[in-house]
């Protein structure tokens, strides 16, 4: 498992490739890789968005994400997982989050990946502040429930 918090832009495809190559223990064992990439939009709630700042609670973020992955590993036979999350100043079209899950079979990969992503949205201590095109700033009040 790897949890990585990035203050600079990251390239999800490179992160996935590098991690998969380094995780030699699962070579030949995984038949499914599920990938979720969350990318910043240039619109939200009817407004044009120019940029965003992502604050986090260092230490607690990693602790909660490790706990979430451990929970997923108890529920599904996950071989390995990688989470990369941006913090700091972010521009539209930049990736915000990557969740990659490796399993032997596809159902477990989809289910574990969804669990990790939804748990991250409700429990990992990150906070988004948007900068609107009108130059006003606003904190996002809460995340939506991805299952609705």
């Amino acid at each position, binding site marked *: 498992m790897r949890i990585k918090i990035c203050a600079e832009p990251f390239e999800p495809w490179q992160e996935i490739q590098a991690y998969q190559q380094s995780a030699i223990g699962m070579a030949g064992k995984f038949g499914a890789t599920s990938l979720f990439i969350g990318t910043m939009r240039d619109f939200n709630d009817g407004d044009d968005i120019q940029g965003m700042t992502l604050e986090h609670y260092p230490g607690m973020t990693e602790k909660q994400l490790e706990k979430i992955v451990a929970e997923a590993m108890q529920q599904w036979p996950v071989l390995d997982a990688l989470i990369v999350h941006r913090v700091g100043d972010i521009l539209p079209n930049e990736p915000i989050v990557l969740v990659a899950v490796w399993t032997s079979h596809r159902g477990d990969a989809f289910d574990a990946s969804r669990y990790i992503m939804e748990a991250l949205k409700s429990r990992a201590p990150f*906070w988004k502040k948007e900068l609107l095109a009108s130059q006003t700033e606003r904190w996002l009040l809460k995340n939506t429930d991805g299952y609705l």
Partner: protein
Amino acid sequence: MSIKVRYFASLKESVGRSEDRLEIAGLLTVADVWRAANPDKAIPDNTLAAVNMNYVALTHEVEDGDEVAFFPPVTGG
């Protein structure tokens, strides 16, 4: 006992600081810690609390050396 209190995001802006260090005596819950640090401000609705980086209820009792954090609902991902 000695308690470190931290605030994040919009809550940090509304209290006007990112942390407090309290020296207080007696059995205290997380809600008591908020009242000691912010006597003139009620804890906002929806505030989440953590002790030593684990989520807790406001009724959780703190111990000497704990780090207590208050923050709004999380919005990452």
